[in-house]
């Protein structure tokens, strides 16, 4: 599901001029976000080696947010995409997607 500004999702992208394995090592390096992850009480949600790091932490206004960092191969290196949005919002968006999907056969949706 594409999350965009309208849903309160902050999105930033950058191109790192190195192969994906090197970019992944830099993203996972404790020197990059390590201290902040500790201060903001980060909890890992999903780690897909070389591809995706997703965690929750304390956002700037006091609510918990989800941070999703994905790595993709690009022509001149690796594209790193970051999306951050409040968990409260994510749950509401998930709930409304589930409600719209409820027109079909009944399925249990967890939001």
């Amino acid at each position, binding site marked *: 599901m594409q999350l965009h*500004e*309208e*849903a*309160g999702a*902050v999105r*930033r992208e*950058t191109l*790192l*001029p*190195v192969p994906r394995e*090197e970019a992944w090592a*830099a*993203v996972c*390096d404790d*020197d*990059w*976000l390590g201290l*902040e992850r500790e201060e903001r009480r980060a909890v890992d949600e999903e780690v897909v080696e070389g591809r995706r790091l997703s965690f929750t932490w*304390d*956002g*700037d*206004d*006091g*609510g*918990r*947010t989800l941070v999703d960092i994905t790595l993709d191969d690009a022509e001149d290196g690796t594209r*790193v995409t*970051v999306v*951050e*949005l*409040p*968990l*409260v*919002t994510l*749950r*509401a*968006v998930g709930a*409304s997607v589930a409600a719209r999907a409820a027109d079909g056969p009944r399925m249990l949706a967890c939001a």
Partner: protein
Amino acid sequence: MRLEHDTTGAVFAALADPTRREVVRLLAERPGLTASALADELPVTRQAIAKHLAVLHDAGLAEVEREGREARYRLTPAPMADAMAWMASTGARWDERLARLHERL
């Protein structure tokens, strides 16, 4: 830094629903609309409108004025400005972090 209520999240959650965004648009154009008037303008029931107004109210985006028998609603957009400010400052933080990521290569 820790607040009791995640106001930014509540604002975006409130605006995540397209019908609620329509309610916000209508209230911005015509402050003081009643729930019935809103239900007339939109393809949803009065009950659904009441639920949407409650969500907007809880997110701090709408205030209600009881005038006679029908309640009238007004947009209180300040939390939207706060939410936009959160997006800008959080985005700026990621710009800084990503700049540091580049420097480390």
